[in-house]
């Protein structure tokens, strides 16, 4: 299979506080893969994801996305690349005071004419698409509510709808279910799974729980203190590997 992302010797140092968040990380993600990032909090998962679309500037190393070097892209090229990499977040990151529909439509911003979008004017087709995306995540009736009136699970669905609007090749999810209860978590994970299987979207998601990773992940990449400590299939993670990733005192818990 073809590589979608190739990461080579990626280093990120946060100047403030002198934190070495990523230390020489190299890996590849294949097209259509469902990759799960594991690791304790502070291990560098969010940093890795944000380096891929350069929300965070890497300190050193290269990231190649579909044959194009993200790290060397001009700001215009970068915006074009970002259109193809959607992202959802632990805290949903919706614009709380805007309507649900506007939030979904903003997934389209990279494609539309900036002048038209400046006066909040979207094409009829875009609005129809946005409604279709909301229907797909099961909340079309919420379209005209303010985003902060929705429950956490519903907000994350809006996040997914916003990602769908981008018609992405890659979906990055930074602990998408950590702020949700277990039942809602599974329904959100199933949307990711569906996007992966039906729309051929490559998914890279960080998760807190190994049980979720085992259930949804095709491949697992575990980070510890900014370094890769494990790379392989979920089945390969035994007791020993688990302690290596999470530390000696950790116990595995099940999320049903």
């Amino acid at each position, binding site marked *: 299979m073809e590589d979608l992302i190739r990461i080579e010797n990626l*280093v990120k*140092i946060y*100047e403030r506080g*002198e934190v*070495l968040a990523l*230390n*020489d990380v190299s890996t590849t993600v294949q097209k259509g893969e469902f990759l799960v990032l594991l690791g304790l909090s502070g291990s560098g998962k969010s940093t890795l994801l944000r380096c891929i*679309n350069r*929300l965070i500037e890497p*300190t*050193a190393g290269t990231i190649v996305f579909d044959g194009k070097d993200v790290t060397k892209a001009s700001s215009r090229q970068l*915006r*074009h*690349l*970002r*259109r193809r*990499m*959607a*992202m959802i*977040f632990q*805290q*949903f*990151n*919706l*614009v*709380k*005071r*805007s309507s649900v529909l*506007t939030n979904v439509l*903003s*997934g*389209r*911003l*990279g*494609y539309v004419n*900036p002048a038209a*979008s*400046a006066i*909040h004017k979207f094409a009829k087709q875009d609005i129809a698409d946005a409604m279709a995306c909301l229907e797909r995540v099961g909340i079309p009736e919420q379209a005209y509510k*303010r985003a*902060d*009136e929705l429950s956490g699970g519903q907000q994350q669905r809006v*996040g997914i709808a*916003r990602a769908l609007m*981008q018609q992405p090749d890659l979906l990055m999810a930074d602990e998408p279910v950590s702020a949700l209860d277990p039942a809602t978590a599974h329904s959100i994970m199933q949307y990711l799974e569906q996007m992966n299987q039906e729309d051929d979207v490559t998914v890279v998601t960080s998760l807190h729980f190994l049980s979720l990773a085992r259930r949804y992940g095709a491949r697992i990449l575990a980070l510890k203190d900014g370094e890769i400590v494990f790379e392989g299939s979920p089945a390969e993670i035994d007791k020993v590997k688990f302690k290596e990733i999470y530390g000696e005192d950790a116990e595995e818990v099940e999320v049903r």
Partner: protein
Amino acid sequence: MTKTYHAGFMSDKPNWGQALKLWRRDVLVFLTDVACLAGLWMLITYAAISPDRGVLVFLTVPWWLMLLVVAVLAGLWQSFGLSSGMKLLGRRLKATQDASGAAAFARRLFRALLLPFSPLLVLPVLVTARYVPIHDRWSGFETQSATEVVDPKSPWYRRSWAVAIALLALTAFAVSVIFTRVNLVKLFTEFDNTANIRAQIANPNWGVLFEGGQLLLVTLFMAFMATLFGIIVAVPLSFVAARNLTQGLVGRAVYTIVRGILSILRSIQPFIWVIVLIVWVKAGNAPMAGVIALFIHSVADLTKLYAERLESIDPGPVEAIRATGASQSQVIMYGIIPQIINPYMSFTIYRWDINVRMSTIVGMVGGGGIGQRLLQEMRVSDYSDAVVLMMLIMVAVWAMDTLSARLRERIETGSSNPALPSYALKLKTEISNRTFGSRW
């Protein structure tokens, strides 16, 4: 297992940015202590000497001598105890060499005397890779963040300074009240001096009502124009005056300059601007001078309020919009503006309210409108005219106050955003500061 760290991580090369930051904090600690001690000095000298020689008694000592003494005292305070500055900014002194006995005492003394003259104040660059200023290095100490040092039992003098200062301040306060009591009594015993004024006020001259109304319109118009032009300049300016939106070297420089200029402008009161502007744009154009004066102050004030709001926006949505491939202008339009629009409106109305009140005062120093007329009447002691004008002003200010309160309430309660009460609260305190504070 040994770790191989990426080259450049925690290198021994001096980190100037970091050193500058630490140096700034040290200076701040020092200045806080100096300010505390200088304040104490003034209080004590004021309290100790009879009131007919007045508050300026601390000046009987040459200013440089006072500063020198205070600086040395600050040094002693920092080296032997836990100074206010260290306490406030969370710094602790830690001995890097043997910390007991006479030698340690001598080293503390050395440090105290060195501190005011150390390159701390003049040469921030004389530092090693890990920032340690000269006075610490030579005396074998180190200041560390309070959380890094576990305090051993602290002797009484390292704890009771705050208590001592509070006691002294109270004493000074009590003494000053005793000395001014005589004048307070006059307020009640010599009321009869105002008989003439009271007689005129009781007999208002309603003939000036129409003319006064016209002048009031001029004043309201001045406030309106100043606010309008203020918005036009302050909204874009606030984006370069917000810390979180001005990253990088150029951004930081612009931020510092804009904020600096703004705080200078804000500290010059509108009535001073009027006096300057009347000379500048010629006296015939009085309302124009008033508008410009209010405009300058409005820009400075609004920009600060706006920028502070920008600084507290949720970065999450902004990041999310950026991640969709949106351009910078789209990020502002979709990620930032929805978060700030209501507070901005609220601040603007509040500022308009202030401008209405200020415009009468600006008029008094020659800025045109009803205020100017009021002062003229008071000059010629025509209080029956003045009282009518004052009533007009009162009605206008009251109406504006009510209107602005209603409007702001509408804006703020029109949303269920939990982040809102905090700025509503801030606005309230700001307003009461301005209404009852030392502005006028």
